[in-house]
């Protein structure tokens, strides 16, 4: 039978647009605007799920975002809030936490043994013996609530946005809309955030006049330019009004996280209706007065046929009117204000059938509506430092006083007619806008590069709002029987009483022990009832017990929204298109996409050693240093001496952090009297720039040095191999390449392939005669092409990162971060002649001096496996022979095409560093092999004859 009511009831649905969906495989129909839950109820399906621990049947309680027991599976998405998610065509909806079916659930047996599942059951029962934990876990996991996660679900699209509004209003009820409107009219940029699907708040399920007023206010907000974010939640408020908003209605993405820096935050979150605690309060057919009115007035759904209404306030009275308008017969109105009460509800497994009143009478019904009071969701105010205070006369908590840039309005601060709430909202919006103007003025005045502010700072507006009255309300929390307090966690008042009896006297502790308030509704329905139960059990007042600390998020956010879109930016050199067109295999090195090889790295090595090779080394960090004090800076940052580097000279340097650990290395050239070019490792480029800035600004602000990063401004190409001089010579007229005129470790500037202002220096990471040229990037493609064209008869070929790594390892050059780590102090490198302890100062010098003095450090050595066909894995351990004592590790290893054998660098303790020492290397396979420590770091051409030629 259909429970759909005729129009005009159902202002949220569009009856002209029918929607088909399935519920546990059964085909059903709903309307556009329905939530999944309202559509199910309209079809007479009133059990939507089963409770977490006892597997009791549950239905709609509140019919809004906070409805605790209506989470369902929708297609491949688990844990969907059926009372919030809008119905969409073709949805396959199914109940979760049921087995084998919703109507017959084996686990409901838990209900029979419920007394064993009281608070702390898990802690107490499964503590010991610890060895049985895997078994416990296995069994308990089957009883865990939640839907099924499909591991094959494709990546959803999520996004983030950063916003800088003047005012954010959290809550789109009458006060929130009025605040947003007033702020916008006062000139503020305003974001109005409503976590339900449409603006209006309680007006939407109020009288006809209320509904008209909601529509008008929403239209005014839109016309005034307020940015309206519906189906979105202000999830958190952090320092200086940093506001996180989870936006669920942005087109094209599942969820978007907005990070807004608001100048003023208006909190108009309204109130949330509390369920009543009594035996049977979780039966399907028991619901709050708001829930019943929402179903009738917004969704045109009849929640029952014969109702008992238990009311302590106007909302219950209004519910009676709504029920009557829906043709539901009112079996009894039980008024708490005249001392009446209910003690229990009973029914079949699936529905309430009878209510027992305090006077012992019983009334038959299939719907029990309760209206017992309000919870003030002060979460966002708590996050701003406010500690709410309980008012027994109004039977709810109120904010004590948030900071000046956070303003509360509406039901959170008092009660009133629709017009009074709107008036308070307007006054709040005006105040928020006025304060935002002052904050904006201050920000602008504090920003040196901003447009200068006009005039004096405006006066900070004082809070002169007329406060809302607080309506008196009886304290109605629990009947004489026990019932459910936390529906999503299945915690009863009995659990809380027994926990209190066990000595849990603090609300923060009892919350964690019983898990009350810790479910998906984050305490919105449960916190105050929990506090009230603890107060009653301990014979204290609610004010004495106080409330729990509400922390972010206000409502759960998906992990996808926190992660945002998958966006890993990468960098490429201007030559990347050539690399791609010529068969390069890409490799991601830090942020850089680089050619790993062009097919055969070993052939690239041999060609470079025999003829000539060119490699794109643009990612090399490059810093242009100018000024009279550059030598002082270099002397401070490098371990060696720099005061006498001649113009045209190039020098290698090692940098340490202040703890003596190797930080970076590279070469620096003196181009002119006061002009230097520093290179850093590719991964260290940004770090060293910051490092230099820090020393210049904090320790030596008097030094005259300008630092400019030019890493991508110059494209760097290394030309290496016996034919490199011939090749470069064909491209330049004004650089004299004669070895006497341009020796090793020198730099020259000139024109290469017609491109002016190129820099060429003779250095050698590969161990070959080589020139590294730095070309203005705009001309780099031309120069690269010329090198290949002019060198065709010289055998020129491009080589990639892998060939370079092999060649550097053949030469025994260590790589910072590969052969050193975060514990490798400078002496580990064996470059002790470069550690100049007679200088006045350099970064890390004292630690390096003490390390050398103690002699207690490992060293980098070259070693070769005795079986040259075995390449030990990098990071393979080196052990004392026949033992498991670790004495070092392989840091780099490759098969050398030049030597036709495996070669390594390793870090070993000093005892094992002497040339000729045999090392025992443990391979990943578990096999142990032997390797021998070499005399030089370089496996190939240790004298460097090729390099200096």
């Amino acid at each position, binding site marked *: 039978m259909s429970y759909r009511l005729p129009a005009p009831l159902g202002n949220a649905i569009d009856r002209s647009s029918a929607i088909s969906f399935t519920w546990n495989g059964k085909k059903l129909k709903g309307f556009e605007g329905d939530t999944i839950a309202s559509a199910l109820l309209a079809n007479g399906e009133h059990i939507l799920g089963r409770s977490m621990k006892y597997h009791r049947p549950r239905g709609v309680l509140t019919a809004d975002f906070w409805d605790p027991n209506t989470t369902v599976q929708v297609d491949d998405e688990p844990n969907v809030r059926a009372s919030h998610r809008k119905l969409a065509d073709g949805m396959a909806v199914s109940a979760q936490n049921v087995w084998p079916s919703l109507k017959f659930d084996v686990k409901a047996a838990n209900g029979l043994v419920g007394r064993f599942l009281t608070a702390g059951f898990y802690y107490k029962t499964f503590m010991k013996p610890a060895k049985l934990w895997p078994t416990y876990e296995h069994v308990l996991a089957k009883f865990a609530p939640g839907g099924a996660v499909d591991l094959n679900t494709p990546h959803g699209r999520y996004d983030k946005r950063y916003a800088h509004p003047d005012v954010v209003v959290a809550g789109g009820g009458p006060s929130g809309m009025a605040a947003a409107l007033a702020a916008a009219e006062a000139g503020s940029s305003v974001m109005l955030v409503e976590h339900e699907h449409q603006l209006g708040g309680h007006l939407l399920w109020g009288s006809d006049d209320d509904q008209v007023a909601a529509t008008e206010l929403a239209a005014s907000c839109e016309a005034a330019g307020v940015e309206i974010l519906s189906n979105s939640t202000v999830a958190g408020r*952090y*320092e*200086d009004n940093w506001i996180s908003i989870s936006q669920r209605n942005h087109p094209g993405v599942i969820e978007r996280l907005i990070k807004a820096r608001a100048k003023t935050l208006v909190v108009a979150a309204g109130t949330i209706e509390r369920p009543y605690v009594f035996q049977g309060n979780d039966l399907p057919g028991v619901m709050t007065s708001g829930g019943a009115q929402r179903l009738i007035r917004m969704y045109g759904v009849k929640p029952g046929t014969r109702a008992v209404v238990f009311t302590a306030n106007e909302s219950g009275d209004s519910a009676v009117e709504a029920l009557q308008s829906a043709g539901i017969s009112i079996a009894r109105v039980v008024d708490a204000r005249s001392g009446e009460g209910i003690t229990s509800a009973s029914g079949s497994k699936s529905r309430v059938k009878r209510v027992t009143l305090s006077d012992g009478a019983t009334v038959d019904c299939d719907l029990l509506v309760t209206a017992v009071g309000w919870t003030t969701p002060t979460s966002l105010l708590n996050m701003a430092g406010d500690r709410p205070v309980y008012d027994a006369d109004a039977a709810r908590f109120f904010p004590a006083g948030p900071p000046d840039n956070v303003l509360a309005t509406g039901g959170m601060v008092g009660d009133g007619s629709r017009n009074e709430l709107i008036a308070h909202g307007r006054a709040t919006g005006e105040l928020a806008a006025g304060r935002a103007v002052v904050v904006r003025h201050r920000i602008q005045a504090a920003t040196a*590069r901003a447009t200068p502010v006009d005039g004096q700072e405006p006066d900070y507006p004082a809070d002169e709002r007329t406060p809302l009255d607080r309506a008196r309300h009886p304290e109605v929390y629990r009947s004489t029987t026990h019932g459910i307090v936390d529906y999503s966690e299945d915690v009863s008042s009995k659990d809380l009483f027994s926990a209190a009896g066990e000595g849990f006297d603090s609300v923060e502790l009892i919350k964690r022990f019983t898990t009350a308030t810790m479910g998906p509704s984050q305490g919105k329905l449960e916190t105050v009832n929990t506090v009230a139960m603890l107060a009653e059990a301990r014979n204290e007042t609610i004010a004495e017990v106080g409330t729990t600390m509400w922390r972010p998020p206000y409502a759960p956010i998906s992990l996808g929204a926190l992660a945002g879109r998958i966006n890993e930016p990468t960098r490429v050199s201007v030559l990347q298109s050539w690399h791609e067109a010529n068969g390069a295999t890409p490799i991601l090195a830090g942020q850089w996409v680089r050619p790993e090889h062009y097919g055969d790295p070993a052939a690239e090595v041999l060609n470079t050693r025999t003829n000539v090779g060119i490699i794109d080394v643009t990612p090399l960090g490059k810093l242009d240093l100018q000024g009279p004090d550059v030598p002082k800076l270099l002397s401070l940052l490098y371990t060696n001496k720099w005061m006498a580097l001649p113009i045209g000279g190039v020098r290698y340097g090692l940098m340490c952090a202040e703890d003596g650990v190797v930080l970076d290395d590279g070469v620096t050239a003196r181009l002119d009297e006061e002009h230097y070019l520093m290179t850093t490792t590719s991964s260290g480029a940004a770090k060293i720039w910051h490092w230099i800035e820090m020393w210049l600004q904090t*320790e030596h602000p008097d030094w005259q040095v300008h630092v400019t990063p030019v890493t991508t401004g110059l494209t760097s190409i290394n030309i290496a191999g016996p034919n490199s001089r011939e090749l470069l010579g064909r491209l330049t007229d004004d650089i004299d390449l004669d070895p006497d005129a341009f020796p090793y470790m020198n730099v020259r500037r000139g024109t290469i392939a017609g491109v002016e202002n190129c820099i060429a220096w003779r250095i050698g990471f590969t161990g070959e005669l080589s020139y590294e040229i730095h070309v203005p990037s705009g001309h780099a493609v031309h120069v690269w092409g010329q090198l290949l064209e002019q060198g065709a008869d010289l055998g020129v070929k491009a080589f990639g990162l892998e060939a370079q790594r092999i060649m550097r390892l053949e030469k025994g050059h260590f790589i910072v971060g590969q052969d050193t780590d975060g514990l490798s102090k400078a002496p580990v490198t064996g470059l002790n002649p470069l550690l100049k302890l007679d200088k006045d100062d350099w970064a890390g010098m004292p*630690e390096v001096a003490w390390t050398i003095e103690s002699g207690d450090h490992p060293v980098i050595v070259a070693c070769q496996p005795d079986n040259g066909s075995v390449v030990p894995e990098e990071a393979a351990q080196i052990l004392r022979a026949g033992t498991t004592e670790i004495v070092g590790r392989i840091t780099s290893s490759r098969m050398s095409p030049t030597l036709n054998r495996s070669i390594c660098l390793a870090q070993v303790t000093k005892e094992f560093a002497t040339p000729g020492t045999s090392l025992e290397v443990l391979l990943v396979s578990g096999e142990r092999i032997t390797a021998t420590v070499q005399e030089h770091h370089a496996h190939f051409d240790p004298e460097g004859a090729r390099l200096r030629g």
Partner: protein
Amino acid sequence: MLLVPCPHCGPMNAGDLTYNGESHRRPDPKTCTPKEWRTYLYLRENPSGWLLENWYCSSGCRKHFKIERHTLTGELRAPVLPGRKPGATQGDMK
């Protein structure tokens, strides 16, 4: 997220700056003892109250600056540094 007033760029998200921790004096590397040097490297006061801190405007103007922050309240104020006039705060954004 805290708004930290860069003297040049104005209030910046703390996440757009680099926090370089408590301000401390670097000992003379020629004469310091290991204890002095390691105190400089590793040991911090971590007071509950006003703390002089180093910040670096790493996503903005690249200025290093000092600021006093109250570790309990999050309040920020411009420090009175040698060679700088005591005066208005660098911006009270609250």
